[in-house]
Structure formats: C-alpha cells, structure tokens
C-alpha cells in the first residue's frame, strides 16, 4: 500500500499516470471507428509515419510530440486520399508511406546533434521516465480534441463507418468525416506515443475494442467497455512497469491481450445462454408475428 502511494507521489509517475489514463480513453475511442471500417491496421501505419516526425523534432530541436503530430496528420490525410483515388495500387502506395516514414525517422534522428537510436527507442516502445511536463500539456490538449470528436460526433462517425454509401444519402459530408477520422487517429497516435510507443499504439486502438465486442451486442456498450478496458490496462500496465522496471508499452499491450483472451473465453457460455433463453420463445413468435406485422 505504501508502495502504491509512493507511485502517486513521484512527479514523473504522476505525469505518466495522467498520460496513461488519457491514452486508455482516446486510443479505443478512435479505434472503434477504425475497427468498424475494417481499417484496424491504420493506426500502425500512422505510427510508422510519425517516426519521421519524431526524427524531425530532434533535428530541429523542437518538441517531438508536435512535429510527430504534424507529420502523422499529413501521413493520415495522404492515406485517406490514397483510399479515395488509388484504387488499383493502393497497397503499394501505403507500403511506401509506412516504410518511408520509418526509414525517414531513423535517418533524421541520426543526423540530429542530440539524437541517437536510444532516443528513438523510447518513442518506439514508450517510456515512463521521459514524459515531461510539456509532454503532459500537449497530451491533454490533443486528448481533449480526440474525445470531442469521437464522442461529440459519434452518431455521424457511426453512420459513416457503418455504411458510407448510405451515409452519403443522408447528406452527411462523408469525405470530411473520413478525413476527420484519419486526422483524429493521427492525433491519438501522438497522444499514445510517449506511454505505449509508436510501434504498439495500434494495439491499444484495436485490442480493447476487439475484447469489448466479445461480450457486447451494441455499439454504445462496445464503446464504453473498450474505453474502460483501455483505461484499466494502461493504468495497470503503467504501475506494473514501474514496479518491475519493464517497458510500459509492452506490459500494457500484453495486459490488453490478456483481457481479450479472458473475455473471449467468457463469451462462449454467455452467448450460449443468451441463445438458449431466446430459443424457446423465438421460433413460434417469429412465425406468428410475421402475418401480424404484415397487417399493420
């Protein structure tokens, strides 16, 4: 217990925990739309592109979090444009973007006077001790944007991610909303970069959502559960990482996968009970109801 209090009284751990909670909320909040659009790996691609931004930050002696945000946004918009226009060789173009982004990051950081691959590694896999107070300010601002978009526009984003063609006929600005999802995903990547690391960001966007949907039937419940799971594993992972001196990103992701496995094992008996409960009234009512409804 005293050890736990010790965690909360250390300034760098306070910063790390604030960042962790915000990552736990934002990553699944945008991730759910990516999963719904079957673009689960988009976060991974943005993470690769953001490496160039980190390198650029070191080279220009600017805050890597803002340069990474800028480059990640440019990259995500490019990916969205490729999705619209590059129907034929879209995968090749995306591969170029991913690997170009990664190579650019390594090259730039080695050119920078203060940079080395060791610096890069803390951005790739996350690091608690390096979360500065400027980082926390940036993370709070960016996370606020992500929360505003993913919750404020949830009905619009749900419609666009569920059925783009239908959404267009409801008069929604589909392209604008798609771009907004891409930009928000890019912003989330940089929010999560310090704690989880660029290479594991995508896991936190996808795994809590995948875990939540094992036991939920509605979008709203999946959303709430995914954010709850995300927050739990980022906090748990951060504390574990501090106590056992292991990298936070890896700990958080393995915890999330653990939750996924547990919920998947729970889901099968749950679904069986639901279908059993339904099965008895279901069959007769379905056939009886049909002509009734036809008369209405």
């Amino acid at each position, binding site marked *: 217990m005293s050890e736990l209090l010790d965690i909360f009284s250390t300034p760098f751990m306070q910063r790390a925990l604030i960042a962790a909670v915000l990552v736990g909320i934002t990553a699944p909040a945008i991730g759910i739309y990516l999963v719904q659009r079957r673009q689960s790996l988009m976060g991974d691609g943005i993470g690769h592109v953001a490496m160039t931004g980190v390198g650029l930050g070191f080279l220009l002696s600017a805050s890597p979090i803002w340069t990474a945000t800028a480059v990640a946004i440019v990259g995500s918009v490019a990916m969205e444009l490729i999705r619209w226009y590059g129907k034929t060789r879209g995968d090749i173009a995306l591969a170029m973007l991913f690997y170009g982004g990664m190579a650019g990051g390594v090259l730039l950081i080695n050119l920078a006077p203060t940079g080395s691959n060791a610096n890069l590694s803390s951005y790739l896999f996350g690091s608690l001790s390096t979360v500065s107070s400027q980082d926390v300010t940036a993370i709070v601002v960016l996370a606020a944007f992500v929360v505003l978009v993913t919750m404020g526009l949830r009905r619009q984003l749900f419609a666009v991610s569920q059925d783009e063609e239908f959404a267009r006929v409801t*008069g929604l600005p589909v392209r604008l909303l798609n771009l907004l999802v891409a930009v928000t995903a890019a912003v989330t990547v940089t929010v999560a970069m310090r704690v989880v690391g660029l290479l594991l960001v995508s896991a936190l966007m996808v795994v809590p959502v995948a875990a939540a949907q094992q036991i939920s039937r509605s979008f709203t419940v*999946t959303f709430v559960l995914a954010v709850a799971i995300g927050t739990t594993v980022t906090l748990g992972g951060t504390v574990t990482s501090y106590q056992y001196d292991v990298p936070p990103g890896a700990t958080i992701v393995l915890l999330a996968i653990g939750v996924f496995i547990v919920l998947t094992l729970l889901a099968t008996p749950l679904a069986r009970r639901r279908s059993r409960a339904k099965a008895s009234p279901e069959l007769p009512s379905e056939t009886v109801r049909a002509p009734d409804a036809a008369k209405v």
Partner: protein
Amino acid sequence: MQRSVSQSDAVISLSAATATLGSRPVLRGVDLAVQRGEVVALLGANGSGKSTAVRSVIGQVPLTGGSVELFGTPLRRFRQWARVGYVPQRTTAAGGVPATIREVVSSGRLSRARLGLLSRADRAAVNRAIDLVGLTDRAKDSVSALSGGQHQRVLIARALACEPELLIMDEPLAGVDLASQEILAATLREQVAAGVSVLLVLHELGPLRPLIDRTVVLRDGLVVHDGPPPAGGLLPGHDAHHLTKEDCHPDAVHAAAAGVPTGLLG
C-alpha cells in the same frame, strides 16, 4: 421557372445518362423518370446497368454524360436529403463492430437530426420505423444475429426513419425469405398509400407486383422497355429470346444484332 409542369412533377429525372466503370460503359444513354406518387421497378439481367443507374441517381456513381435531377433540382445542388430514403444492396452495410437494430435505424434519422442529437420526436420516428418492419421486440439485438430477411427489414427501417417522400431501393428482395418478403410488401404498400414515390431495382416482381405502376427494363446499359408491368410471368429483357421488337428500343436491337462486346452476358 422555365420548367414545364410535367417535369417539375418528376421526383427523379435521369436523362441521357452515361456512366462507365473502369473503362467499360455501363450506362449508354438512359432516360428514366419517376413521377410523384409513382412506383417504378427497374429490371434487367445482371450487368444490365440497373444498379449503376440507381446509384447514379444518388450520386454514388458519377455520370460521364447526361444529367440527374431530384425533385427538380440538379443532383449537384440537391441538399434536401431528408426527402430521400435509400436502401442499398445488403452487402454494403456491415460494420466490424456490433450494433443494435435501433442504433442502425437511428443513423437513418441523421438527415433530419443534422447535429446528431436525437430529440424525442426523432426517437419516436425511429421506433415507428422499426415497428413498420415488425422488429420492435428485437430492437436491442445485434444486427449480426439477424437472418438475411430480417437484416433487409432493418435497412428498410433505416431508410424510413427520416420519413421520406421518395424511396430508392436496390434489390430489396435479394436473399429475403418469404415471410420477410410479405412484410416488406406490406410496408411498401403502406408507404405508397401515404403518397411516397418509389424507385426499386428488382430481379423479379414477386409479391411486389401489385404495387408496381411501371417497369423499366435495362439491357446492356440501354432502356429496352418502359411501360406497365408485363401481364404474365415473363420479364422483358431477362431473356434475350423473349424480347420482341415492340419491347425493344430500336438502338438496343441494333446493338444486340451488332454484338456489342460487353463481357457481361457471356
């Protein structure tokens, strides 16, 4: 102002429409109008261009020539989407995250609740739409747990949630069991009775036959028949052997005779 009365009465007006998919011409000069209160079925074999024609009406497929008007307004300037209910082919509407029937149907209300805030009246309209297709007691179920026919009913409820004046449906009966077909027919009958205009793509008239005012048959991207639904079981255009000269647009006969390669009909 310059438009004649008959034209301004058309809720859909597609004129001399041409469209290509890739480099292949799919529409080769299609004229199609739906008057207010009319129920028009668009028929034709696979690859005849009927789906493309419908999707060009809603702007999903860009036209390479000709024009589309909705309610007398050119499509490019059309903004009153709350007047249109659209039912896409079932395959396009499946997300990777669970969603309940009510959640999916609610998204159909967005054309009226632009900011995404559903008022009490909006929620009532959503419930009414779910009730119309007979799924009220399943509103909280995940759409992925539904049969093909029930899923189709959800998509129709979603289109009805905005209380449209015009319904556009792409193959609403495809993969739908008989019980659901009857419910769909009843739902549609009620809408038509309330004055809703309908354009629907069909493979066969089936239980909807009594509702149809006019059939338009496409073949190789051209209209080959435009008139009352055929009396017998025969659908013009579905089988080349059944086509008579009267059924056909002269160009189509000529095109067929010339053997225009479409790569669609084998």
